[in-house]
């Protein structure tokens, strides 16, 4: 083998080392604070821009559905919040994994700050779904597989929020919440495939990664824009909360210098 081409195992080892360095570099709370402070205005203003355009287009300019009438306009909120509810929980599980494997202080803080925002997204998804369901199905709620699995996701978020605050030793709270976050990941594929596995009142997904969208382009574009706006808004909220949490940790460290580290971070 020529000297210039490293053996395969060496290359993969270098990649693993680089990935590890990348995570360690950005997992530093102080470094994250400075980077997020710099990008926060861009994320926030982009979120406002895309949400305003997406919802404005959806509310005033997109056509009504032939079957659902104007209630289809609720979709421009319901679908982005549904996606964020699942994506937020996936992020929570990743933070849980980082907490259990590497005990990263930033992962602990991120999990603590993502959970309330994710819970609000899930609550919004359930509320807007009910408000869309009443005129279409004649009822606000049915114990349908999709609706029930999203309700379970909401309870998982509430459980995570409660567990973090339930222990006097913060590290134990983070670990218990991380275990719950990882165990609860099983709910995500159930939510995704519930409309395929069971005969549900909830309609099947209109946008998937594998098939062409089944909704009109005049509805698809405002939906994509509001999804982008809501996603950026979610990131902006988490960044702001996380920056506040990092500062609060610093304040506690200054106020109680002799306190155990586990109860500060």
């Amino acid at each position, binding site marked *: 083998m020529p000297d210039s081409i490293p053996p395969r195992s060496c290359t993969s080892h270098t990649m693993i080392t680089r990935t590890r360095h990348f995570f360690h570099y950005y997992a530093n709370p102080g470094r994250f604070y400075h980077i997020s402070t710099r990008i926060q205005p861009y994320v926030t203003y982009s979120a406002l821009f895309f949400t305003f355009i997406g919802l404005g287009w959806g509310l005033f300019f997109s056509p009504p559905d032939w079957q659902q009438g104007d209630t289809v306009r609720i979709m421009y909120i319901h679908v982005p919040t549904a996606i964020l509810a699942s994506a937020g929980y996936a992020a929570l599980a990743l933070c849980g994994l980082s907490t259990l494997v590497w005990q990263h202080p930033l992962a602990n803080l991120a999990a603590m700050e993502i959970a309330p925002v994710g819970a609000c997204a899930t609550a919004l998804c359930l509320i807007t779904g009910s408000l869309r369901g009443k005129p279409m199905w004649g009822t606000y709620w049915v114990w349908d597989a999709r609706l029930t699995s999203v309700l379970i996701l909401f309870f998982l978020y509430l459980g995570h929020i409660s567990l973090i605050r339930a222990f006097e030793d913060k590290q134990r709270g983070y670990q218990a919440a991380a275990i719950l976050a990882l165990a609860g990941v099983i709910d995500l594929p159930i939510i995704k495939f519930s409309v395929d596995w069971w005969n549900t009142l909830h309609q099947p997904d209109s946008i998937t990664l594998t098939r062409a969208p089944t909704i009109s382009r005049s509805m698809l574009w405002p939906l994509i824009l509001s999804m982008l706006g809501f996603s950026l808004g979610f990131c902006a909220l988490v960044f702001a909360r996380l*920056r506040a949490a990092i500062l609060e940790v610093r304040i506690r460290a200054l106020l109680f210098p002799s306190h155990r580290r586990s109860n500060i971070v």
Partner: protein
Amino acid sequence: MTHPVFIIASYGITFIIVTVLSVEAALRLRRARTQLTVLEKNTSHSSNL
């Protein structure tokens, strides 16, 4: 427009929840920044003494 009550309720609740979350985050960040500035000033002042 059909079913305006449901549409207005959906957009209204979303607006309220997003506003509450944003204001809470902004206030928390501002409070933490102010408190930290005061604390760091006091710490550096006491260390100079």
